[in-house]
C-alpha cells in the first residue's frame, strides 16, 4: 500500500464456487507514494481488480490478485490536464463577496480589472488531476478566468 496508502476496494461482484470465492471490483486511491518507479503524483487513481480466495476450514489458504496494472500506469503517467482552481481571490470583488454585498461570481459582475485580481491557486487534487504548478499571486485575465473553474468566494 505504499503507492496508494488510502486505497479502498469496492467489490461489485462476489462469485463463489466450491471452496473458492472471487471478488471483482475497483480499487481507488491517491498516488501518494512511489509506485513502480513513479514518484507520487497525488492523483486520484482507480483500477479494475480481481481477487480470488481459496478457503479451507474457515480461513483463506491461498489467494490470487489480478489488477489492471497498465491502466494504473497510464493514469500515473498521463499529462497533467488539470483545470486550475482558484482557492481565493484577493481584490475588491472578493472583498465585496465576503461582506455580502457582492456577487458570488467574483469576476463578471464586478468587472474588476484583471490586474487587480490576485489569485491563489493551490496544489489541489481535482478529479484525479494535480494542479501543477501552483500559481500564487498570479493575475488572471477574464479570458483565462472564463476557461478556469473559479471557486466561490469564501
Amino acid at each position, binding site marked *: *500500500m505504499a*503507492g*496508494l496508502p488510502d*486505497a*479502498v*476496494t469496492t*467489490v461489485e461482484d*462476489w462469485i*463463489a*464456487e*466450491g*471452496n*473458492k*470465492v472471487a*471478488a471483482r471490483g475497483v*480499487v481507488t*486511491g491517491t498516488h501518494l507514494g512511489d*509506485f*513502480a518507479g513513479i514518484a507520487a503524483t497525488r492523483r486520484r487513481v482507480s483500477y479494475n*481488480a480481481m*481477487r480470488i*480466495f481459496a*478457503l*479451507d*476450514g*474457515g*480461513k*483463506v*489458504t*491461498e*489467494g*490470487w*490478485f*489480478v*489488477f489492471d*496494472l497498465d491502466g*494504473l500506469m497510464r493514469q500515473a503517467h498521463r499529462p497533467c490536464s488539470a483545470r486550475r482552481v482558484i482557492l481565493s481571490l484577493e481584490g475588491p470583488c472578493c472583498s465585496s463577496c465576503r461582506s455580502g454585498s457582492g456577487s458570488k461570481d467574483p469576476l463578471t459582475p464586478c468587472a474588476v480589472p484583471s490586474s487587480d485580481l490576485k489569485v491563489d491557486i493551490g496544489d489541489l487534487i481535482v478529479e484525479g488531476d494535480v494542479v501543477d504548478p501552483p500559481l500564487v499571486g498570479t493575475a488572471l485575465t477574464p479570458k483565462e478566468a472564463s476557461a478556469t473553474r473559479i471557486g466561490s468566494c469564501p
Partner: protein
Amino acid sequence: MSIEENKEIARQVVDAVNRGTLDALDNLVAADMSSTSRFRGKGRAWQAFRTP
C-alpha cells in the same frame, strides 16, 4: 464451510483491508497462506491483500 460462509469470510477480508485493520486478518487467513499477484509474483499471506 458452505459457499455462503466462505463468501462472508472473503467479505471480511476485504473489509479489513479497506479499514487498514490488518490484525483482523489473523483470524481469517491461514498462517501458511500463499498468494500470487501479477505485480509481486508469488509470495506469502499479506501480499495477497496489499494493493499497489
